[in-house]
């Protein structure tokens, strides 16, 4: 996780040393290309988007592009990775707050909904467009699903409830994916945070049963209202 956040900071705040202008230029070019591939893919769809479109959007030359990336897919997956790393960092931080476990789940859920609603283009790129990149989609989907399921499971301490249903963590991550995907496709990305109370309930029930889940749902209603 520390490695990921380090990458991200470098990407966002290029701090090339003096006397290395080439490195600096490449970093800012890379940054612009990554932002451009998100915008272009969301606007045109992965299949229709061309490297030329990305170059035009980023204001970067073709040669520079191919110095940084193998092809359109490589650039797309690089942008995807940075976004998912950032999402994981936000969720992990929210989940790590020193509170009872159901409240921590609610915080992690709120952070996830906030992340997706804050940037609808990034949201669509990360979750919806990825499925159109072809065979590369499946291993990435699988790895990221496992990554977030593990994140949830690793945060269940000794004193926390044993999930009533064995696969509850996988179901919880599945619920987030399915719901957020649906809202993005229906054009309701910016309204995602309003789903917090109901999603908190639906996510918690398989772990703690209906009563405890309902209490947490009520807290979510108050905290968002």
């Amino acid at each position: 996780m520390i490695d990921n956040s380090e990458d991200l900071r470098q990407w966002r705040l290029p701090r090339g040393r003096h006397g290395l202008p080439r490195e600096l230029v490449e970093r800012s070019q890379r940054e612009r290309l990554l932002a451009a591939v998100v915008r272009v893919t969301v606007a045109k769809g992965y299949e229709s988007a061309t490297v030329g479109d990305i170059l035009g959007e980023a204001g970067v030359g073709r040669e520079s592009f191919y110095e940084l990336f193998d092809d359109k897919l490589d650039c797309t997956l690089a942008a995807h990775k940075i976004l998912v790393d950032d999402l994981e960092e936000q969720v992990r931080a929210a989940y790590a707050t020193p509170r009872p476990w159901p409240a921590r789940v609610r915080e992690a859920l709120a952070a996830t909904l906030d992340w997706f609603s804050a940037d609808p283009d990034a949201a669509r790129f990360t979750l919806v467009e990825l499925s159109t990149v072809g065979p590369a989609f499946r291993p990435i989907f699988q790895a990221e699903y496992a990554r977030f399921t593990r994140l949830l499971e690793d945060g269940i301490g000794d004193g926390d409830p044993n999930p009533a249903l064995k696969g509850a963590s996988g179901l919880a991550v599945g619920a987030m994916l399915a719901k957020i995907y649906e809202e993005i496709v229906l054009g309701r990305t910016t309204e995602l945070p309003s789903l917090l109370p109901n999603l908190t309930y639906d996510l918690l029930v398989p772990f703690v049963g209906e009563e405890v889940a309902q209490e947490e749902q009520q807290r979510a209603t108050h905290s968002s209202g």
Partner: protein
Amino acid sequence: MSVLQPTTAPDVAHHAQRQRIVDAMIESCAEKTYAATTITDIVARARISRTTFYKQFEDKRACFDAAIDYCLEELQRIAAAAHSPSDPAADAARKGATAVVEALAERPGLAQLLTGDAIAVDPMAIERYRKATLPALNALWSEDREVDTHTDPRLAFGQAQVLILNQIAAGEIEGLPELLPEIVYLAVSPYAGHEEALAQSRLVKNAKIGSATGSDR
């Protein structure tokens, strides 16, 4: 009726041909994804001419949509056949969900088409699945259930889909029945609540242990 008419009625032949094309589409998508599938692939597999293809379907996408409809109808038929009207609703939901998951495990092409390609081709495909599935599930339960106290059936459906997609992404379609405790839980919990869903989920586990020891009914 004239004796000169062919013994096979034209619409029967027409229908068989259409089904061959749909089958070819399903097979090709399973093998190389929808994006990589060409009309040439389909006509070669179905052993028909290009002209015949275009008599049946306007384009590749129209053929794909027909394949999705066919898969959904198959699964609905399988789910309906898995339980009898005398089954209590929770048992019927468990049996239907079990039958569907087992059918997907046995027919990987169907599973891949529905979870992988359909979503890549049309993100709204999920809405079509819901429309094909949820009314049948809803109908199992009496109308006086307290909807507000339980989880959202639309969400449960999406969760089941993600679980199945993940299993397929891992290349382990034949292992789909391992997900049955969770999927049965999802099929029951929106309607009958957490406790009943857990009970139904345990019945699946017991059935598995039972069949392994040969004591299953």
